[in-house]
């Protein structure tokens, strides 16, 4: 191939890299927050008393976990006809919420019933049980897998490039098509993804430390 490297193109096209980074961060942040909310609700619903609600939430989880994200995005954008960024946010949220619902469900499930029964027998109200017994333990169990899912959101945001969202992976192609320097672009962008993932790892570690403190003190 006799490939000549020209890292200067990264400087020349840094506005593209910046645009890509901004969009990836926006898309991922929205995706994380919304899917946590939605997934939390569905995960709770999965553990509800009412059988139909449990079944409905279970169906939601199975349905959106077993269809590739790219198919879901294409559906929202081309079939339903939403604009690119909203379609990407909705698609990413719905898809991730199914996984987060599972994480939350299993986190709640892993807390032994005996704990709750014991707390109730002490005379704690349901709210107090949740606040002081269930929630802290659930949070501790749930934070690591949530961290994994959040990193997945960042990775999955790359799929939005197929529905015209100009995020980081799109910019790899864009810089490539403008300068034919695919290698340099791919290297820079890979590094950016690693940095984003590291940010989440650090964030989750910080959150975990806060919760741990709360557990001790509470």
């Amino acid at each position, binding site marked *: 191939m006799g490939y000549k490297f020209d890292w200067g193109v990264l400087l020349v096209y840094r506005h593209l890299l910046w645009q890509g980074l901004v969009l990836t961060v926006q898309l991922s942040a929205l995706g994380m927050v919304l899917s946590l909310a939605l997934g939390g609700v569905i995960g709770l619903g999965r553990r509800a008393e009412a059988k139909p609600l449990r079944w409905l939430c279970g169906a939601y989880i199975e349905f959106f976990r077993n269809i590739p994200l790219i198919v879901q995005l294409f559906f929202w954008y081309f079939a339903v006809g939403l604009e690119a960024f909203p379609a990407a946010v909705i698609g990413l949220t719905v898809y991730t919420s199914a996984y987060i619902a599972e*994480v939350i469900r*299993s986190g709640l499930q*892993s807390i032994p019933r005996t704990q709750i029964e014991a707390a109730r027998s002490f005379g704690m109200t349901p709210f107090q049980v949740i606040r002081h017994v269930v929630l802290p333990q659930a949070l501790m169990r749930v934070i690591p897998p949530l961290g994994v899912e959040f990193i997945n959101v960042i990775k999955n945001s790359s799929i939005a490039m197929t529905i015209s969202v100009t995020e980081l992976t799109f910019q790899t192609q864009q810089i490539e098509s403008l300068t034919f320097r695919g290698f340099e672009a791919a290297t820079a962008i890979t590094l950016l993804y*690693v940095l984003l993932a590291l940010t989440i790892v650090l964030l989750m*570690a910080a959150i975990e430390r806060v919760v741990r403190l709360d*557990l001790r003190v509470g």
Partner: protein
Amino acid sequence: MDLHVIVENLPYMLTGLQMTVILSAVSMVGSFAGGAAFAMLRLSPWWWLRWPAILYIDLVRTVPLIMVIFWAFFLMPVLTGHATTPVKAALFALILFNTSYMAEVIRAGIQSIPKGQTEASRAIGLTYLQAMRHVVLPQALRHMSPALVSRFIALFMGTSLVYIIGVTEFFRAANNVNNRVYRSYEIYGFVAIVYFVCCYALSLASSALERRFAVPDGGGADTRSGALRSGSRAWGARSVAGALGRLTGTDLRRPD
């Protein structure tokens, strides 16, 4: 709702599905081998074997699959010295990507066998390799099987991304059809349903495997079995929990 268009193009789309299955199966086998190798490296006592393995595993898992596919596309002809087909590049990318996950699954599986088992086997006179082969690995495989199926499902869905390097698997086939007939609701709805049916069936198999090989324990107090019960995709989380724990200096695998 024009279902006609699906029926007409079914044979073509099914050949795409065939390619999807082939890609998934071959990648699974390849990445199992690779993952086993890397798991061994990961568990080795020598830091100069361990650290490259850790680096590889963590690096590949933080990068999106699409980027791995681009990388494989650029790197493969250089590494092999001559031209490659999109299918081979796709396999290279999928195996490269999945190996890192498999390494973690296998490592967790091996580590889930209590040391007592190896010690007991050595005590009754088996060599290390015999102990591995007859005692540890069969049990480890049983523990791993839900996670393995879960990875296969992820791989199956991941093949939809190789459409960007021109491999005609199921999703691209359906896209080619839609690019001619423009019936997005019908075509993408059909694609969604097919993927759902295939992957859901596989996940039911995974649950069945889980139940068969359930790790007996005293209830929900142990987070490990909680993770097992939650349907195996949390396996990845368990091992990453270990990784995250290492990074932050706490062991997140043990409850509190």
